């Protein structure tokens, strides 16, 4: 049995959203954070599935979708590699940040907050975070 780093990095999946999408996001996050460097070989589908505790077929689907998006390249017989274009990874950073923001905005809309109040609140929270240092 292959030893994997499952214990050190368990992924908390949201069971109400497709798992393959969340795997894609996780791989992108890891790339953005620098866990995987541009052009680096990714763990095999099997190892990555064991690491994240998901079905290998779901992992395979996530890899395929990442490849379709051009974020990952698969070389026959060699494995899957992260894109070597740093620009692509940077644009994912923006994409992930945008997704987080829109989720945040939707949540606040749900509380019937208008844009001005949202901005004001955000500014105050940011100030507080800065005061307390990082977390």
């Amino acid at each position, binding site marked *: 049995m292959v030893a994997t780093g*499952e214990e050190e990095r368990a992924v908390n*999946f949201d*069971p*109400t959203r497709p798992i393959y999408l969340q795997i894609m996001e996780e791989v992108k996050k890891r790339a953005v954070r620098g866990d995987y460097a541009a052009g680096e070989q990714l763990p095999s589908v099997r190892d990555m599935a064991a690491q*994240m505790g998901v*079905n*290998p*077929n*779901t992992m395979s689907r996530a890899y395929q979708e990442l490849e379709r998006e051009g974020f990952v390249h698969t070389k026959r017989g060699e494995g899957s590699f992260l894109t070597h274009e740093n620009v692509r990874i940077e644009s994912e950073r923006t994409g992930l940040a945008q997704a987080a923001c829109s989720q945040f905005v939707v949540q606040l809309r749900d509380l019937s907050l208008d844009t001005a109040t949202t901005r004001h609140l955000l500014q105050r929270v940011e100030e507080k975070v800065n005061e307390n240092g990082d977390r």
Partner: protein
Amino acid sequence: MKMATVEINDLVKRYRGTQALRGVNLRLESGCVTGLLGENGSGKSTLFRILAGVTRPTRGQVLIDGLRIGVETRRVTAYLPEVDAFYAWMSIEEQLEFLASFYPGWDQAKARELTQFMKLKGEARIGELSKGQRARLKFIVAFSWPSRLILLDEPLGGIDPPSRARIMRAMVQEFRAEEQTILISTHLVAEIEEFVEQVVFLHDGEVALQGNADTLRTDRGKSLSQMLEEVLS
């Protein structure tokens, strides 16, 4: 579409006075893990028993790799019923050696490796094992030979969370997607959300809902646990 390992057409099972299955149609694709979800009495165990060749259906057709249930299909099917049939007086090692002769292609090295992974001691008496340890032993038996179809009926029920986690991890690592098909039932749906690729919701002996788990999540924005609640209401 992938090849089907299991094909079930209009399956009916009547026991004295009750109808356990009322015309079930099902197709389990090769290399897939399918979750069979439903409350007690929904017909899950009956379906398992028919697939394992323990019970005969009243009506309908069941094929495994294109074959009718019989000696040949039983040779490729690993059936783990809710209640195990281990001998209390045997040690784990003795039990595994004993079982080896029943399963074609039994891999003793794999059995030992899994015993270690499951944190069990080969010399321990089965009668002295906890429920969780016995459940782990069931998994070792299921995954120590190259079966085509693995039937897991409530494998996580009534056992401690660390044992559940250990079993789930072993399943993810040992499942051979190229050649195996798994059908797993559990009322602990949250435990298997990320592991099952297909789901079948059984209600009152009928398929209430089925499909690819991620597709259903996309369409409904709900978890499998929530979908089960919906099916039951």
